[in-house]
């Protein structure tokens, strides 16, 4: 399953350009004459005009004609001077793609075939059917110049739903979408990320137009563009009795559930080999959850290999037969979920595919029932009351279900990947299907607990050991680091990270241990820092108690923000025990701090007892979306935390 990719810069530069002397079309010449409005200040480029005119003919053929003009305002805006049309060769055709450049003086030229390319859409798939045709004018299109294109794309796909995003990040002076439908056809539309708006209608033609759309500047940890940019979602319903090439229509989520079940259910029949393997894997499993865990472990460990074919005909939603995936030992998300269904079915356990949008929990909207809202497939396993935990949901129509992602090899059964928590997902259980909210792990589940023991030398050198325990999503992150990079490489990275905070730090031991079923991860470290404390005038020895840094969770790099700050919940706790060097006594220790704010709470205390200093710090960050207007509070909170953590300990020679 895949989503049509967002516009991306083309990695191919033409070696040279072909002679072409065409004049720019009138619409482009007119658009290019418009002055740059004040609201475009700061943007790398400005969209002067973007129009899509979509005609659906009675047979279901969809023809989209687009006109687009963009003015480059800054050097980095050159990458906007590109036209990319995505298509799947089995159902789509790019009938026309032409582009022009217009200079500040109005002089125009066409970009010929030497600026054009046709390529497979870059992806991680072994085979990717989706392609892109493009014309790239970035090389020549300097500041003040306008790039424009016209395209005509014909589709004969099975999909009965259309989408139009009125802008990417760039500001847009005008963005128009016109839809012509055959007589008697109905449509339902939803305008997302924007106040409701009625289209201008004339006969079977509807037109939506937005003007003066502001620049959606990228900010760290801000909501994604899909939540910020206005989007139009359309569902078409052919007139009764019409014969079209289009597939099923979707009036509600149950329709989507039925459609998905029809595609997926026949593929999940177990063959003898699957039955035999399922029985073998669960032979020693005493309980229901043990059986499920054994199957989950097997499927999670299969290689992820994606083969994208038949996309225009719904191939992105239909898994390979379970027997095929089992024989190959690889598959993509829907293949893996489907094989797991088959293996569970062999054991008499029911399960359903779950459609979800990975990496953006706010993407899916309830108001538009459509399979096109999803890009990932996981599983809902029917379980008894004996199985509990936050990943279990009670769905009135489908029963008690354990949500599990069989593609993510780092998140064990009983946990849900962080990016999928709290997002809308469709239980594709046919007539019993439902759109649900994926459960969220309790904040306390995701935490890091660290104990640091260290010994300071009279010259300021430091030796120490650290035991760090990761829980929940923090364990998943740590585990994936180790699995993807290997122990040796992570140890080097850790050493570089620590040396980045305390120069010369070396790690002599880094011992990870993973308890995958419990979703905990433990790391034991031994380290030394030859120049940690600073000896001054052979009298004062100054050092900070936090020798091992902690990760910075929240970015505060800008003076102010335009968009809300999306904060992930995190909990960090550390106890440091530092033995004093012989001949030194404590002169000053940190006073201890308690910093409270809307972001969370930080506490630190410092005690001296029997030649040993104990410093305890804890930082609890609440998962939340903080409005831009309250960004100052976040900065102030983190500044106060940083000040408290930077407070040194001063020792004096006795």
């Amino acid at each position: 399953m895949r989503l049509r990719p967002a516009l991306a810069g083309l990695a191919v530069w033409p070696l040279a350009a072909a002679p072409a002397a065409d004049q720019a079309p009138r619409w482009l010449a007119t658009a290019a004459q418009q002055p740059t409005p004040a609201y475009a200040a700061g943007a790398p480029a400005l969209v002067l005009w973007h129009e899509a005119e979509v005609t659906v003919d009675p047979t279901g053929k969809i023809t989209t004609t687009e006109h687009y003009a963009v003015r480059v305002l800054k050097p980095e805006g050159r990458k906007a001077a590109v036209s990319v049309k995505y298509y799947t060769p089995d159902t789509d055709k790019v009938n026309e793609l032409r582009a022009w450049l217009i200079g500040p003086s109005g002089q125009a030229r066409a970009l010929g075939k030497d600026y054009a390319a046709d390529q497979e859409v870059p992806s991680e798939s072994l085979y990717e059917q989706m392609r892109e045709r493009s014309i790239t004018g970035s090389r020549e299109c300097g500041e003040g110049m306008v790039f424009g294109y016209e395209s005509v794309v014909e589709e004969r796909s099975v999909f009965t739903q259309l989408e139009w995003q009125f802008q990417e990040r760039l500001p847009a002076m005008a963005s128009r979408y016109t839809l012509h439908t055959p007589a008697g056809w109905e449509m339902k539309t939803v305008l997302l990320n924007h106040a409701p708006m009625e289209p201008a209608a004339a006969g079977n033609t509807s037109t939506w137009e937005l003007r003066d759309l502001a620049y959606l500047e990228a900010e760290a940890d801000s909501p994604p563009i899909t939540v910020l940019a206005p989007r139009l979602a359309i569902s078409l319903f052919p007139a009764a009795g019409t014969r079209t090439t289009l597939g099923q229509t979707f009036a509600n989520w149950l329709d989507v559930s039925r459609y998905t079940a029809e595609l997926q259910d026949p593929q999940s029949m177990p063959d003898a080999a699957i039955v035999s393997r399922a029985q073998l894997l669960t032979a020693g499993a005493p309980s229901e959850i043990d059986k499920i865990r054994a199957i989950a472990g097997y499927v999670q460990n299969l290689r992820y290999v994606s083969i994208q074919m038949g996309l225009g005909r719904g191939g992105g939603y239909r898994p390979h037969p379970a027997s095929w995936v089992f024989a190959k030992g690889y598959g993509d998300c829907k293949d893996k979920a489907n094989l797991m269904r088959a293996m569970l079915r062999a054991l008499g356990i029911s399960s359903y595919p779950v459609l979800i949008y990975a990496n953006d929990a706010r993407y899916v909207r309830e108001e538009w029932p459509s399979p096109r809202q999803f890009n990932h497939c996981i599983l809902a396993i029917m379980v008894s009351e004996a199985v509990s935990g936050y990943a279990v949901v009670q769905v009135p129509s489908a029963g008690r279900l354990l949500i599990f992602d069989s593609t993510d090899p780092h998140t064990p059964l009983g946990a849900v990947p962080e990016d999928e928590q709290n997002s809308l997902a469709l239980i594709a259980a046919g007539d019993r299907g439902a759109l649900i909210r994926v459960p969220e792990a309790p904040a306390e589940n995701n935490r890091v607990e660290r104990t640091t023991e260290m010994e300071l030398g009279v010259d300021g050198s430091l030796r120490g050991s650290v035991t760090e325990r990761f829980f929940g999503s923090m364990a998943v992150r740590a585990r994936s680091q180790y699995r993807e990079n290997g122990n040796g490489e992570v140890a080097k990275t850790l050493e570089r990270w620590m040396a980045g905070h305390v120069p010369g730090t070396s790690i002599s031991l880094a011992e990870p241990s993973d308890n995958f079923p419990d979703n905990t991860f433990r790391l034991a470290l031994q380290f030394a820092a030859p120049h940690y404390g600073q000896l001054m005038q052979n009298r004062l020895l100054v050092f900070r108690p936090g020798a091992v840094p902690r990760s910075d969770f929240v970015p505060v790099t800008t003076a102010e923000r335009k968009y809300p700050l999306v904060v992930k919940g995190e909990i960090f706790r550390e106890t440091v025990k530092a033995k004093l060097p012989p001949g030194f006594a404590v002169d000053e220790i940190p006073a201890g701090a308690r910093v409270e704010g809307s972001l969370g709470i930080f506490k630190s205390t410092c005690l001296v007892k029997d030649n040993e200093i104990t410093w305890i710090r804890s930082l609890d960050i609440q998962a939340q979306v903080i409005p831009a207007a309250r960004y100052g509070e976040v900065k102030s909170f983190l500044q106060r935390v940083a000040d408290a953590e930077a407070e040194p300990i001063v020792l004096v020679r006795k």
Partner: protein
Amino acid sequence: MRTLAGAAWLAFLAALRAQAGVDWKPVNAEELCLKSPRVDKDAAAEIIFKEIRIEFKNGEEDVSEYARIKIFSDRGREQATVSVPYFDKDKIREASGRTTKPGGATQAIAADGIFDRTVIKANGHKIKVTSLTLPNVEAGDVIEYYWRAKKPLHAHERIEIQADIPSERVRVVFKNATPAIGVHWVFIDLPEPVQHFSDETSLEFTDLAGIHDEPLMPPEDMAHGWILFVCRGRFQESETDALSEYLKKYLKSGGDLRRTALEITRDAASDEGKLRNAYEYCQNRIKRVGEDPVVEDFVRGKQNHTPEDTLKRGIGTGSDIDALFVALARAAGFEARWTTVPDGEMVTYDRNAMEDMYFFRTHNVAVRVGGQWRFFDPATRQLPFGMLRWQEEGQPALIVDESTRSVELTHTPTTTASASACNHVGMLRLDADGTLEGDIHIGYTGHMALEKRQKMINQGEQQWQKNFTDDIRTRWKGADVSDLRIEKRDDPGKPLLVIMHLRIPGYASRTGKRLFLQPAIFQAGTAPVLAAKTRQQPVYFHYSWAEDDQYSIELPAGYLLDSADVPMPIVAEGLHMRYEVHASAGESKLAYRRSLSFGPGGWMIVPAEQYKGLKSAMDAVQKSDDHTIVLKQAAPGVSR
């Protein structure tokens, strides 16, 4: 129907290739039982044996690759997917593979595990890929793959020897069945192989590490092992002739050009002045394709063929602009020549191993002044007159005399460390709450200035300023930058200036009765560039540089200096490194000066064996930069 027929044909082809007669040799028991890697203990997979065969025959190259790989962990399974890219005139004749389980059972790749497709079509060319993925691969398995391709004969054939994972044994077998073609080969970053000669040549490498990235690495091409097969004469022979022939036309000058040369050099009193005028004309008056907005039809078939074309149209490529400078200098009476040099960003040149034009990828202009060759590159925007980019400094230079078809080999000069400097000057005030505030001037010269200027132009000045302030806020939480401005951005002959007012709350740490101030403001607490304890690759410094920081810091009322000692100077002769700090405290001010000079001039490579010494010197500098000065609260009634 068309699509189905196409798919069926692809599957048929794939099946043919998969079934092609690969004579798999049995995987031995030792390999099947192997539990841990033999070359690198941390490897997720290791190449047990790889053989690359290459034969030059009938104007074609026949290339094949066989590999046997042991998978040690789940991470190593990514080796089970193999992609072979090739151009449209090449043909993949065979592709196959199989998985062998620890118990000896094998599973061959099926036709539906092999995919051929055109990845890109552009400019009349196609790049295709054959991908294959092996079935049921798990840790403990041995996988094998094989492919064979036919290609038209190229002047250079590059064979990658080192892989992402370690290799126990890699054999390259080479045969030249066309005696008319002279073939030699160059090893890059490889140990001396065991060589066998018969009717074919066999080169065998053992125990090759996987490719690892490290900071300040030599160029990618110099940091992993590969072999270049060269299928023609060396540059002293036929390539010089070809280049001379090309340059005869490309540098040809005419009447308009002579008139322009006279015009732009008329006011100059000296040779230096004439060259400077010609240089600035080329650098500033000719638009460069790819950098300047160019609406005009600068397209294939309308390229510049002579310097006069460039002059008339006012547009050109980098080559065109350098060629125009050659022609203008000649017209003004100078001996000027086209010069090719290796690009230091792509290779660190070794004359003993790399004597081939393949490595001379960039160009500049040599002009004889006062009996000496001087080098210029007006095609590079923001490059000061008389200086070269670091990539072209200290490189072997082939000065081409196209009239006699001869070349002269010399070296381009280098600039000293002090020519590429970064200076911070600040008038600051420290408050009792630890806030540091004041005006800072940052000056850049030489290569540092060029890099900054190019970044400012590429990003746009506004974006550069935003990134700059974001970096400062990332570094110091709560820091505020105001009145930020850039001066002399477009005057490469002058230092580039960045001026700002900086306020850093909590810069100095506080305890109940002390303030702790690190006066090396822009260096203290920064992450070391070389943090790793050990090193596999040499360390490559692109150019030598200097730093000079001077601050005057007004101290807060009610505080006395408890310790104002400074770190000792550091000198590392082998690195041409010198570091010094001076500090003096007056009635209410601290004067601080820090200076660092690094490198002998030009680029510098420190071998991995000398990494310990380099790191020790750099750590010592960092420790000194982290040096803290303590201010103590004065007892009531005690004045400063």
